[in-house]
């Protein structure tokens, strides 16, 4: 690993002031540190944001659950409040990586990174999340731009993620057997009025499957999407799963999610 400067910011303002084109925020470090060790990324400055009090913690109101950006996966998976308000969100967190990763990795780091196979982005889409940054509020639907790409500007810091509490929801992941990231993960959330079917792992970026959402909004039963033949032309294909297999898994996992709701 190349040498770098370590800074610990005491608040959001200091953190974003320290940021530059050759810096990264250090949250859990579960993505940043391995990339630096493998020489895939080099930074001059790492700005530790874990000591910013405001960024950690979970708040539940009548309609929403708000999670501080530096809250660890393990905190979300263990939170009684989350379990009660949105049980599928806590079980999603429980299914990320392994205990070591969950004990360090954070929700903010996960969505800022926007790995096409990460789990949390699907929750953001399915649960109509609002991403609170030090500068503004961004709707999830406008936040995830593409592979490892988000609407964040340089130095912009995510402070919290606010999830809308659905009537029912479930996240079903078909994990990559090696890494246990999602080969396909489908987050189904039934809100008053409409249903979101957020899909991760299948394409270059998380998305809401309009076709399935529509079918399920009409009739919230797995039979209404059974046998659906999704277009696989934009789906990922790698040694773990071809595009066709992924297309089939999206429907299968969505059905499982609906049945589990």
């Amino acid at each position, binding site marked *: *690993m190349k040498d770098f400067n370590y800074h610990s910011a005491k608040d959001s303002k200091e953190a974003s002031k320290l940021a530059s084109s050759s810096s990264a925020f250090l949250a859990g470090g579960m993505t940043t540190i391995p990339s630096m060790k*493998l020489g895939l990324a080099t930074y001059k400055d790492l700005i530790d944001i874990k000591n910013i009090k405001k960024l950690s913690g979970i708040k539940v109101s009548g309609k929403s659950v708000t999670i501080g950006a530096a809250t660890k996966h393990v905190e979300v998976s263990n939170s009684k409040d989350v379990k009660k308000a949105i049980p599928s969100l806590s079980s999603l967190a429980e299914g990320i990586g392994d205990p070591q990763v969950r004990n360090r990795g954070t929700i903010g780091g996960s969505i800022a990174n926007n790995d096409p196979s990460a789990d949390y982005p699907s929750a953001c889409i399915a649960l109509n999340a609002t991403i609170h940054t030090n500068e503004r509020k961004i709707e999830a639907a406008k936040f995830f731009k593409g592979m490892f790409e988000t609407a964040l500007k340089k130095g912009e810091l995510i402070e919290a993620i606010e999830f809308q509490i659905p009537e029912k929801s479930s996240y079903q992941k*078909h994990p*990559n*057997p*090696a*890494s246990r*990231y999602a080969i396909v993960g489908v987050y189904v959330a039934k809100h008053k009025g409409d249903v979101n079917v957020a899909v991760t792992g299948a394409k270059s970026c998380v998305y809401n499957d309009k076709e399935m959402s529509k079918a399920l909004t009409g009739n919230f039963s797995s039979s209404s999407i059974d046998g659906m033949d999704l277009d696989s032309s934009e789906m990922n294909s790698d*040694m*773990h*799963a*071809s595009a066709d*297999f992924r297309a*089939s*898994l999206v429907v*299968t996992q969505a059905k499982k999610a609906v049945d589990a709701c």
Partner: protein
Amino acid sequence: MASLVGSRVERKEDKRFLTGKGRYTADINLANQTYAIFVRSPHARASIKKLNIDKALKSSGVVSILTGKEIADDKIGGLIAGWAIRSEDGTEMKCPGNPPLAKDNVNFVGDPVAVVIAESLAEAKEAAEKVEVDYKVLKAVTSTADAMNGDTIHEGIDKNLCFDWLLGDRQKVKEAFDKADKVISIDIINNRLIPNAMEPRACVADYNAASEEITLYTTSQNPHLSRLIMSAFGNVAPEHKLRVVAPDVGGGFGSKINVYNEDIVCSWAAKKINRAIKWVAERSESFLTDIHGRDHVTHAELAVTKDGKFLGFKNETIANLGAYARVFGTVTPTYLFGPCATGVYEIPAAYTNVKAVYTNTAPVDAYRGAGRPEATYTIERLVEKASMELGIDKTELRIKNFPTAFPFKQTLVHTVDSGDYVAGMEKAKQMADYKGFDARRKESEAKGKLRGIGVTSYFEACGIAPSAAVMSLGCGVGLWESAEVRFNPTGQVTVYTGSHSHGQSHQTTFAQIAADELGVPIENIDIVHGDTDKGTFGMGTYGSRSLAVGGIAIVNACKKIVEKGKRVTAKMLEANPEDVEFKDGEFIVSKSNKKKTIGEVAFACYLPGVRDEMKSPLPEGDEPGLKETSFYDPSNFSFPAGTHIAEVEIDPETGHVKLEKYTACDDFGRIINPMVVEGQVHGGLAQGIGQALYENAEYDETGQLMTGSYMDYTMPRADNFPEFNIGYTCTHATTNPLGVKGCGEAGAIAAPPTVMNAVIDALGGQEVTMPATAEKVWKACKNLKKSNAKAA
């Protein structure tokens, strides 16, 4: 005194391991040490046009940079194949040179071309990036099946063929096939695996300019053998000036048998720079450069009568050796494979033909089971297919062809001394509730799932091996083992063994054996291994040989101690040695009932005299001291055997295979410590099931390893397995005094066909290759649905 052999004695080594007090090679730091980083080829096949170290030499902290040129100039030898295999046409195998640092050509991604030695690891890494190598990239050969049609990798080795070997009689087989009612044939791939020991390879080399001695601490399964190879072939130093220490080693599975490039380079370079050098592999280096396992492409046929008697067997295999032939690289796909390929069956005629090919991939060598998993997979997949095609129950068909008497003269090479295969099968069926399977299948079907059951009956030849036999087959060394048993004057015992424990619990099981033989409490017995300066020469640990060969050497050395003790007791008590009996640590004169404890005898041996008398307690001709050595050369291999049964449930929508039940009923002969044996079985099963369902080393057509990290190479985890159902039948080996057979590899040998037979059973007989990943199984389920629809 109660016998310790057979009881669950707690592991002596656990205190050290569980409290973080293990001492592995990477824990060793020497004064003034430097750090090595190897510059490795990023290409699978290339010639080196130019190598420029000027910039790197100027990098901060650099002590030295050495390349293939210096190593060639110093006449340091390369890595070698330990077995000479002869082709069917009588010609000797063809092996390329394998210099520790490549000078002219690189042949796989990871092949080292230079070593950078610096004051710190970070500086070594930084400088290594500045070494400029100008490669002319050549077309790589990566496919096992097509290797013979690829460009010639090594000059002078036509068709990339190392040897084309035959075991058996083609003519007899042809005659058997002519008489057959039916021929079952199968095409299978034995997937390439990466051993993935938990501790990556490492070495620390030190040079003492005054004594001119090199000390190498390294992650080896066989330090004595490593020293021999490094000295005799590597020309690193004469044996008496080279000490090899393999301290705690965190798993080997065969991958740490070989002497590796880094061992030779660091030892040689430490002397050159007159400083200690430390190298620890990063995990990605382990993926690229540890030996890999398996990688066979096989076509096999079984000739049968309509009522299920086996008449003949053919096995045509292409085995991938990777870029170079290494220590057990050539014997693994031949003598460790061919003889076992006819399995536990009486088959009158058989042959195995193996074409071993070079490719631009990491060298392939012995990995847990070495050859026997490939053999068992071949025959057991074939037998399962025969049962489907003949409509004979899979267990009945096997029993029908089991040997009826022991010793069992197996078709090709081995004479199996002992066993009871029918009893093993019956017990396994009971343990697995074989009868209840149909009901369970119906339950699964009611949930929309597919359920399958798979059986494997195996035997394997381990406890390697009689020296005369292996040397006649081309082995470069004899495969005996040594032990030295030393009493201290005050009665504690140190046992030096040539075996090496890297997870096998020798410290405990060997001490159990010595405790029983000598009647000394186990707390007073220490097992020492892993250092060429301590104890006599030994051949190391692999091929489930530690107990069946190394353990017997301990028994024999103990017996010599007891013999001497009898003579000494007789002299002390003025009796005839023939009248002295030894039991539970006491020498008793049968006529007078007078006795001496073994501790008293040891004491007397070290202090041969008594106050006021000019009298030695030692009989004439006996020297002072109590220390005996044994070199034990086994008279035969040992032959563990057993039946395993697996049950899987498949979700046809996702292709997910869930291993529901796994039953292993093994015959390992006498069991020294059941707890340790369970651990060995569990580990072997995990690796065998890993091969069947998860693990696969995949290269792309340019020779890049696609599965070079745990993000892509699926190491099985605990939650992939059900609770294993383990049982034993126990027939003692007749060829060694303990009656032991060996248990280290059985799980890895039996599990792949057992699991795959279950998967394929669930899929209505459709073949899928290992590993049975979700996508492959999902596709097979779709086909099954289609063909069922057609049939309906």
